[in-house]
């Protein structure tokens, strides 16, 4: 046997067959949790900048004639695009402060406008993100948040116009609860089917989305729901007593965001501080061990899908009761599907979901002003959104780019199954 010559050193993911001691404290771990998403965001915007430059044919032409001017022009194009995006989603703090000091309430309102738009977009995303995240913790992939949202909006709008003459503090909670109920019903069906027959929730929830969408279309044409004197599918308008009030009069952002934040808090408590959440997570990680420990997998499945559906239903209720006050087909630009992404980007943690929802809300709110101010096509925002998702959902990619070592533990877990000890 000839000696084997030393070959090129190949990177091998290392692990100890004993547990590597955790050198880092909890603080470090938390920092790590923030660093990766921030880097993902940065990377997405850097790549997005190149796309902005490359899709501008005027700029591209300039590279041939005057490269120096082209660099300058590219820089200003990128800066103004991102500036407009930021201005459209957060606004100008200077303007806000100035208006505050001069007690110009109209000015304050105008300065808060962009932020209000971000909140408007983020509110339903928090609900649907929580819906998907909660189910995910129980090992269920809830693709049906969109359908649950539609059912919730239908229930909410009916409750909103059906009762007349109630005071708002009774009527509004009823309408919101109706929204929860509608979504919960739409979550209960796949939950029960999964628990009883093992029908896969992914297929059932996808199909129920279609059912929900078309059920709404039908319902909107019935006498019960359709607005008098209209032939198109549109609902009656909810009573003023069932409208979610704005945070500040004159702003579009409404108290729905507070409800959403409370929902996030409630989901956190449910998952991490309650006996049900203990069961949910146990079933999600290892159903066999959960059963062995005396937990009911069927019950956890049904209960979590009902809760997840209800959360998505609240998204529908918040959009309808806090917005137009009326239901029409296709009012959701895909909040339910974006909720899947929000949940994953937020690492299925309630706080993460809130942060991710705000990020996506900001991107969405800033898109239109960006297009108006700079002429950068709105598609670019969608591209950046996709890039953000891509980099966030694939932390390995970001780690590879910035050469951040993976946590030892991850490697050990992955490898331990293969090699044993």
């Amino acid at each position, binding site marked *: 046997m000839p*000696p084997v010559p030393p070959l090129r050193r190949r990177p091998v993911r290392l692990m100890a067959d*004993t547990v590597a001691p955790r050198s880092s404290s909890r603080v470090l771990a938390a920092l790590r949790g923030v660093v990766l998403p921030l880097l993902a965001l940065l990377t997405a915007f850097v790549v997005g900048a190149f796309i902005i430059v490359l899709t501008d044919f005027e700029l591209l032409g300039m590279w041939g004639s005057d490269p120096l001017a082209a660099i300058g022009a590219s820089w200003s194009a990128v800066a103004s695009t991102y500036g407009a995006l930021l201005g459209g989603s957060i606004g100008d703090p200077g303007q806000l402060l100035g208006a505050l000091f001069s007690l110009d309430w109209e000015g304050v309102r105008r300065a808060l406008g962009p932020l209000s738009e971000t909140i408007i977009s983020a509110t339903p995303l928090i609900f649907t993100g929580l819906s998907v995240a909660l189910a995910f913790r129980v090992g269920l992939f809830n693709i049906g948040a969109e359908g649950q949202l539609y059912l919730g909006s239908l229930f909410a709008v009916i409750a909103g116009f059906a009762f007349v003459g109630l005071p708002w503090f009774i009527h509004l909670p009823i309408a919101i609860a109706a929204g929860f109920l509608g979504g919960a019903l739409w979550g209960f069906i796949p939950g029960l089917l999964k628990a009883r027959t093992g029908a896969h929730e992914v297929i059932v929830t996808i199909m129920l989305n279609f059912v929900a969408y078309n059920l709404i279309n039908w319902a909107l044409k019935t006498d019960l729901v359709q607005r008098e004197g209209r032939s198109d599918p549109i609902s009656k308008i909810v009573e003023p007593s069932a409208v979610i009030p704005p945070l500040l009069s004159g702003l579009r952002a409404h108290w729905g965001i507070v409800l959403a934040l409370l929902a996030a808090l409630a989901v956190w408590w449910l998952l991490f501080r309650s006996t049900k959440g203990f069961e949910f997570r146990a079933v999600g990680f290892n159903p066999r061990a959960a059963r062995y420990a005396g937990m009911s997998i069927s019950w956890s499945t049904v209960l979590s899908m009902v809760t997840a559906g209800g959360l998505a239903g609240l998204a529908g209720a918040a959009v309808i009761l806090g917005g137009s006050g009326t239901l029409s087909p296709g009012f959701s630009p895909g909040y339910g599907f974006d909720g899947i992404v929000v949940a994953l980007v937020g690492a299925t943690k309630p706080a993460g979901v809130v942060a991710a929802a705000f990020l996506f809300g900001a991107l969405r709110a800033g898109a239109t002003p960006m297009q108006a101010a700079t002429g950068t096509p709105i598609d670019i925002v969608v591209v950046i959104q996709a890039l953000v998702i891509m980099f966030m959902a694939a932390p390995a990619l970001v780690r590879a780019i910035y050469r951040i070592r993976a946590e030892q*533990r991850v490697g050990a877990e992955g490898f331990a199954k293969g090699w044993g000890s």
Partner: protein
Amino acid sequence: MKLELRGITKRFPGVVANEGVSLVVQPGEIHALLGENGAGKTTLMNVLYGLYQPDEGEIFIDDLPVQFSGPGDAIAAGIGMVHQHFMLVPVFTVTENVMLGVETTLPPFGRLDRPAARRRVVEISERHGLRIDPDAVVDDLPVGVRQRVEIVKTLYRWSDVLILDEPTAVLTPQETDELFEIMHSLEETGTAIVFITHKLNEVLEVADRITVLRRGKVVGTTTPAETSREELAAMMVGRNVQLTVDRPLAKPGDSVLEVRDLVVRDERGHAAVDHLDLTVRAGEILAIAGVQGNGQSELVEAITGLTEPDAGDIRLSGKALAENPREVYRAGVAHVPEDRMEDGLISEFTVADNLVLNSYWRAPFASGMRLDGDAIVENADSLVTEFDIRTPSIFNSVGNLSGGNQQKVIAAREFSRPISLIVAAQPTRGLDVGSIEYIHRRIVAKRDEGAAVLIVSSELDEVVALGDRIAVMFQGRIVDTLTPEEATFERLGLLMGGAHPEDGVQVAAGAAGAAPAPAAGETDG
């Protein structure tokens, strides 16, 4: 081919996995590498197999230094490894699995040359008595045969050094014997074998030389003739270990568990437990021996409420036992499940959470729907101390602990409350000597406190060490119950193989061949 490791040191952040390890493996030698879990055996072999680069030290093949930057280099140098968890494609045939990665093709379109590969598989398996059907689909094969496929894979790649990582962990006693025969056959043709294990009997039975590792260092190298079980155990653990459980005679009291005419059918309607009767009294240990897959798992699942029996009666102190794990728990039954990681623990959960996995819903850990974090932490702190669970913190994931400590977590959870019956399936599977000793002592302590104990084990050592009565289960029935004095290994082995209690020795041969088959589904699922 002579293989030598000289002064191998491998460090991981905060841990020295191997420190100055030197080892010589001669051609035609079975060299056992003995050590507790975490002693650095696997790390050392991963260095040898090119998966890790050593920080210090060198590898020599036939006295020439070599460097491996990946398994490819190691394989090219003639080193073959059979991992504890098999690397086979279940839907492929044996031949396809063996040729995978080193396919030979036929012109003109690169068609796989299956016939040639098949011929070599047949030739290799005949030369070493491996008895493999080259056309069988791997999915259909029992675990023992799959392991042989792995061995053929290495031989197909012209390996001169074969590393077997804990090869017997997944095997029945019969399959283990067959493996040892194969190892001897390979040895005769000049193959060097590195046999990684922590089982003392096996080492003494099969090895030519034994190297003991402890905490990453070589403690010593010896031969079976020069050493004993006791000495090896002491070398492994670093102190004297009691291999036989020291225990007073049982004082059986009233009957606690009564199983009458129990029938449990598997998915195919086959009676896995077939009209079985048994009684366990307070203060005694009934050990059930048997080759895996003879209905033991189904029996345990029926008693612990995980499976609904198809017929029969299970009573605990005269009362019918509910068919629901939580009710069984409340009735005072402790269950140590067969598969720690699959059934007993949630590896992603913390040690603290796993310690309340079946009691989280009641006081003091919960009031209404609210979990009391303080009570859970307090409980964990006291149990970790009481049961000597070695973990950096109670907030560490249980999946990061060693097998012995994981089993201690289960023992702590199950034994730390008032119980009248313990049902323990394979309670020490895959554990090292020190942990086995510990778990056995705990079980005996519970017996002496008056608990009835039912142990199911495929380890004869364990059955004989613990059982006050020893029942042998075969094809869903208890074929005989022996006293410890009557229970010689030979007699147990015969009964486990299906011999009738009154039969003589001659039944053994036929039974041994038939027995391993049902074990396949068992270790798989």
